[in-house]
């Protein structure tokens, strides 16, 4: 795992804990290191401590325990305004009594940058977010997306090396959000800045990030590039949280290297990848992605173990078919199949056989 190596990291959290009330830990033993230029996303349900982590990095909250390093130096005692970290807030926090240009000039003014220099930088930053003509407007006269761009420009105008964004797209509609996701990643990569991005939207996390840290209960549940996160979740929380997922619960009956046998609750035994199991005889949750399940015999690999299933629902979604099945006593087993010319369209009540590759099936913690 990359998070062990903090010596050459640009930003590092070392055994950081945080408690607001002295009773419960909001952040529990956080270890995280990111190299310069990385786009890291903290993903997790609301209340999992993402904002708290960001605020500790920005200097608005102090860590109860542990150390935060920026460029190798501990910053616990540096006040926020000296950290030189750009921030984008969820509600943008554009100063309502200043024009857009004044908002952008603010960080330059407090840094005592000369007027001509300042104007040039403001103009460049506005052009960068394609808002060159809006310098004279007040934030209230801008749409949500425009405000978002200005907030971004303001966080970047003083050329910070690290930018923090706390759910910056949360208030935008879907289409605009997708557009802005693209723009933000482009900007971050072209400027080479290190970005810590917080979101509770998994698609956003997957599409934008170099790496994603999945938060839950004050801990990082998994830190990995998006594809790994999706394809090899480390625990059932990650498997559930990222993308769509089918789970079957059972008991581990045998372990054979990478693989293990799991006896499901209805008595059938399947083979799964032993990712995160407590041992033989212990309960496990087996996770299978809906698109990795096959029911077309001809396409199934040789020797794949199959299970009986009954079609409960067939939903035509255009590009894909989504079918809900009853499998091993569970009625929420979903499979997704591509709408190909030779694809069989199932009907309600059909009895079928389904199967998957053991490597697509992860035995995780119960």
């Amino acid at each position, binding site marked *: 795992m990359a998070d062990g190596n903090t010596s050459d990291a640009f930003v590092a959290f070392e055994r950081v804990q945080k408690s607001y009330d002295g009773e419960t830990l909001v952040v529990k033993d956080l270890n995280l290191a990111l190299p310069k230029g990385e786009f890291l996303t903290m993903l997790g349900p609301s209340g999992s401590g993402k904002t708290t982590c960001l605020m500790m990095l920005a200097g608005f909250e102090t860590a109860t325990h542990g150390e935060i390093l920026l460029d190798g130096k501990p910053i616990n005692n540096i006040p926020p*305004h000296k950290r030189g970290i750009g921030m984008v807030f969820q509600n943008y926090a554009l100063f309502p009594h200043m024009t857009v240009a004044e908002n952008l000039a603010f960080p330059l003014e407090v840094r005592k940058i000369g007027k001509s220099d300042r104007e040039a930088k403001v103009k460049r930053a506005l052009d960068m977010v394609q808002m060159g003509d809006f310098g004279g407007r007040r934030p209230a006269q801008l749409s949500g997306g425009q405000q978002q761009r200005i907030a971004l420009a303001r966080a970047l105008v003083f050329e910070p090396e690290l930018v923090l964004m706390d759910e910056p797209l949360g208030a935008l509609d879907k289409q605009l959000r997708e557009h802005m996701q693209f723009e933000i990643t482009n900007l971050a990569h072209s400027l080479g800045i290190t970005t810590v991005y917080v979101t509770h939207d998994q698609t956003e996390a997957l599409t934008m990030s170099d790496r994603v840290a999945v938060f839950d209960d004050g801990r990082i549940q998994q830190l990995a590039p998006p594809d790994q996160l999706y394809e090899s979740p480390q625990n059932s929380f990650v498997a559930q949280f990222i993308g769509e997922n089918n789970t079957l619960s059972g008991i581990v009956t045998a372990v054979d290297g990478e693989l293990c046998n799991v006896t499901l609750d209805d008595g059938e035994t399947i083979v799964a990848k032993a990712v995160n199991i407590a041992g033989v005889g212990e309960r496990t949750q087996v996770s299978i992605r809906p698109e990795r399940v096959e029911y077309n015999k001809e396409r199934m690999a040789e020797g794949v173990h199959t299970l009986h299933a009954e079609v409960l629902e067939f939903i035509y979604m255009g590009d894909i078919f989504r079918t809900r099945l009853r499998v091993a006593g569970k009625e929420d087993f979903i499979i997704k199949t591509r709408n190909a010319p030779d694809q069989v369209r199932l009907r309600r009540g059909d009895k079928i056989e389904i199967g998957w590759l053991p490597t697509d099936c992860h035995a995780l913690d119960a």
Partner: protein
Amino acid sequence: MTDSSFQTGTQVGDETDSQTGLMLAADGTPLKRSLARALRRQKVRALLLIAPLLLFVMLTFIAPIADMLFRSVENQIVSETLPRTVAKLDEWDADTGVEPGIETFEALYVDLFVAAERKLHTRLGTRLNYEMTGVSSLFRKTGRRLDDFGEVYEDQFNALNAAWKDPKTWVALLAAPGWTTAQADWAKTKKGAEPAFELRPGVAMMLPRTAEAYSEFAKFIQEVDQDSPTDEDPWTLVHTALYMDLTTPGAAYSGPMPDLIAEARTAAVNFTKFDLKQGFLDADKDWADPQVWATIKTYAPKYTPGYFLNAADMQLTPDGIEARPENEQIYGLLFKRTIFMSITITLSCIMLGYPVAWLLANLPMRTANLLMILVLLPFWTSLLVRTSAWKVMLQQQGVINDVLVWLHIVSDDSRLIMINNQFGTIVAMTHILLPFMILPLYSVMQTIQPTYLRAAKSLGATNWTAFWRVYFPQSVPGIGAGSILVFILAIGYYITPEIVGGTTGTFISNRIAYHISSSLNWGLGAALGAILLAAVLILYWAYDKIVGIDNVKLG
């Protein structure tokens, strides 16, 4: 213009509209008009909703203010009480330096006689006394003597013919026969209204003074005494008037009792005369002072700027507008002091209230609520109690002085004077008005999200810069709202300055109250109030121009 071309295509039937390019609603009426109609209906509904309050405010607020503004210029008392004198004074020129002629004295005699009977002359005296000291006693003294003036004639008429003693004679001579019958009918039952006195037609031509005097008499008897003129001896004024009518050449008499009149006319020539002017001068020699007459003439118009001039330390003299003597100029000082102290109080409230409001807005809910109770505590205590408490605190033998003496900060014989002066008023009023500053400030600050400060700091601002450049400007609307509230409340404050203000810490409102309740110079009180109102409106307007009233938020 794209609209109009579009309209031309679709609205063929209605050419004018498509030519002018008006948008049409579905039923073909211009969109603007149907919109206006819809809005009007909304407005009417809104108006109905506020109607009870509007009515209440009209009756209890707008109407009294309008009345007050009216009183500040209203001056009908002079022309109503001395109508004849005022008319005669029209021809008199004050610059001549001599009192007016005998006709004016005759007119004054009639006016004052009637006024004295109706007991209006003292009110007029009080009114004119505002403008010239001594007029009040002049009117009072004269009023007491007027009755005597005509006694000479009454006695002589009565001696000449006993018929003059009988009220019926006068009625027969002067009253319209129709009225006499009606009056007699009324006297039987005394039910309903007494028929108003009517002069016999033509008598006003033949005996003009008598007719006028008797009319006044009859009116007075009917209105004030609610008796019948047929049973009452006329005033000596009437006798005097008759004497003058009979001795001055006029139209021949052709009414009832011609013999009686003829007899009186012959005898009157030899009657002992009473010199009216001398009578006035005997009553008070001030009647020879042209200044008195000039004052009456100056204040004769129905409306006068006099009260306002007075309120501005000026006066209306026969020679025009002049500044009052130095030692009588008090209102300018009072207005300046009121405004200065109100500004000081407002500033103190900002200084003390801002940090408290900030705390309130930033503390956790529970603590903030507790603090809020402390802020609101003054509202639960009577204003008088609070003000009196300050008296206890600040007086020379009071708590603060005692503590200072005990701490040896001041010596016992040089205790600080903190009450009954401006300092006391400012302290007490700042305390009393503080909640009015804190509450709007608090509600505005509550809307300022803490992320603004965080954003500013993340952009590199120090705590102070973040506050001053980001937080403070956003709290200005609260300061504005609080300041307007506090200032306007302070400028008209009365009780506190009255109790702790002494002589140097009183406000203009204390003076207004004095004129309303003690000196009873309502006109001046009203003028002062009107100026105060104007000052507040001007300040409000100036505030709107400088800061913008849109920038005032109560939350």
